[in-house]
């Protein structure tokens, strides 16, 4: 598993760049990921999405379905893609430190 060092912290990440454990999440991680996710400046709205994802994950042990995320945040899906260009699964979940969403394609 590749390791990343950033501002004195060390993160183990998988091939898609997700950290290996939610417990390792810290604000520095968000700082580190934002650039590769195409985000210039983090706003309160970014943080709102991240916190909603984390709260849901702590409560349920999985990431919420997209529909729940849009309902709870009140943001339309298209707007979430504006905030996180690679989308709620790949972008926002990665920044929030959640495990990689699995899914059949």
């Amino acid at each position, binding site marked *: 598993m590749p390791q990343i060092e950033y501002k004195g912290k060390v993160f183990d990440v998988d*091939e898609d760049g*997700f950290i290996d454990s939610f417990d390792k999440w810290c604000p520095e991680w968000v700082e580190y990921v934002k650039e590769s996710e195409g985000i210039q400046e983090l706003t309160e709205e970014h943080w709102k999405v991240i916190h909603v994802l984390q709260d849901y994950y702590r409560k349920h042990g999985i990431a919420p379905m997209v529909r729940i995320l849009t309902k709870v945040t009140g943001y339309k899906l298209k707007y979430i*893609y504006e905030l996180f260009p690679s989308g709620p699964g790949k972008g926002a979940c990665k920044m929030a430190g959640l495990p*990689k969403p699995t*899914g059949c*394609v």
Partner: protein
Amino acid sequence: MALKHKTPMLDELEKGPWPSFVTDIKRVAERKPMAEDLLGLLEMSYEHKEGHWKHGGIVGVFGYGGGVIGRYCDRPDLFPNVAHFHTMRVNQPASKFYTTEVLRKLCDIWEEKGSGLTNMHGSTGDIILLGTTTDQLEPIFYELTHDLGMDLGGSGSNMRTPSCCVGKARCEWSCIDTQDITYDITMRYQDELHRPMFPYKFKFKTSGCPNDCVAAIARADCSIIGTWRDKIRIDQEAVRAYVGGELVPNGGAHGTEKRALDIQKEVIDLCPTKCMEWDGKNLKIWDEDCTRCMHCINVMPRALRPGLDTGATILVGAKAPILEGAQLGSVVIPFIKMEPPYEEFHEFVEKMWDWWMEEGKNRERLGETIQRLGMKAFLEATELQPDPRMVNTPRYNPYIFYDPAEVPGGWSHDPKAYRERHHA
């Protein structure tokens, strides 16, 4: 040229008279290390009787949540050139009409930035570009959209790339403009196509007539199948010409020799509803009993044609086995005109999606949600009136929808007590 990996088991697949994907990949492997390692990896999978692709992988392009399927192999140490082997889905043009120029450019892009291997077409209909690395995704996407005017297709819990038969472009039976319908769905539902929001995949397929050349009835969550509500057009002269052996039956599909058609045996007796009669001179069809099976029209295309008052039948819920077994679509709208701007259809689609997104469980196809909650709930949500034409054989298998609250004077029923009195 000797390839890097020995592939004795794959070589077996090249034997026999059929075309072989192994031969295809070997041809590319001569110039592409990626294809060479792909062969090695596949041989190892055959040896171990186990796939060596990791499940999932989440890659994509900015702004889209679908169109790229992430693939990583679990032995990058042995096969470094397929450590990444992502698939890109490209939205095919309606009815798959394109110029050779576009196809050449597409192949040039893939030769340079991908494995060079393509799959024309995947079962959804998309152009499948097999095998590239994460760093190439954005450059490929840029060239596709800017230089070729093509877009990525759907994957994951997206609306999938809509597909349709050749339609009015080349087929005289097409009752609807399948290409226009596909284009309309594609453009109107861009968000749904690119940004996954559904419980699971959702497919639209459009066939121009009940021959259903894209197999919409078996594969699409929402099938749009052309039909007519007036009478089959009959040219009695041409019917007699078929019987007299002046024309080739089946449009030459089962042999191009001219021969006398045994109309009783080959047409009348095979009509599923027995709604035809031949008196030796004229063909009579009782259209009210016709179920649009198309058999007679297929056998005698010069003599019989679909009617002129055309439109479509809408079916929902078809799917391959996933949580539940395979299902064919169920008719929910027996007839709709399906003419631009398709407002009535859009309204139906949006009500259907709202219900499914609200009620559907994760990874549950529309057909499975309907199975779980009942067709009654679906019809209520989409505000469609139940109709005997939605039932397979109404006289044998009637089912009546009612809402106890709407029965004048009220009505209550205890199914348990009833079953005690009337054993099933």
